[in-house]
């Protein structure tokens, strides 16, 4: 799985910490999500997409 979280985060001038606060998760989780090393639940994926003002399809690329 690949993600475009880093790209969208940069567009919104958000740090990993800011995004973690917005979504309500640990900073570590954002790090793992950005590296594509964590498969999030549908709810978390939706919350991250909402925080970055985009859609799940835009954010997560499944191989």
């Amino acid at each position, binding site marked *: 799985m690949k993600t475009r979280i880093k790209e969208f985060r940069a567009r919104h001038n958000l740090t990993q910490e800011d995004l973690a*606060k917005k979504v309500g998760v*640990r900073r*570590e989780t954002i790090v793992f999500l950005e590296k594509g090393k964590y498969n999030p639940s549908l709810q978390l994926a939706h919350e991250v997409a909402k925080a970055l003002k985009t859609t799940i399809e835009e954010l997560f690329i499944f191989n």
Partner: protein
Amino acid sequence: MKKKKTENKKQYWKLAIVGSLFLCLLIIIGFIFLRDQNITLIAIAIIVLALAGVFVAKRLKSIKDVKKGLTLEDERSRKVLLLTGAKAFQISIWYILILMWLSSVLEIVALEVEMALGLSIVGMAVIFGITWLWANKQEDLDKTVRF
């Protein structure tokens, strides 16, 4: 937001209580080990202390994050803990079985009841710590644990 803060506070207290109990346990074990002057046991105590150090350092970092307004527990940390528990339980069973086997069948290690209990408890704690470090690096946290 208020609910999240209360949950974090609860986590904070749980961490403080468990940490204090663990520290007391380590001090008692260390004291007994030093009193008995057994090099193997002192080595075990040092390994346990080193692992406890890593755990405490990680937890202190988490507390700093909490002070910044971040949460201490989320879906990933819960999955890590679940995988850790399952895997540590599985490994602990094998560890205790091997310990029993070495002690009774092969008679390589002659263990008294107190020593066997102590080694089992400390061993299980060490296994849990190592398994947590392993689980925290895993990509697939939904994997099943097979015996």
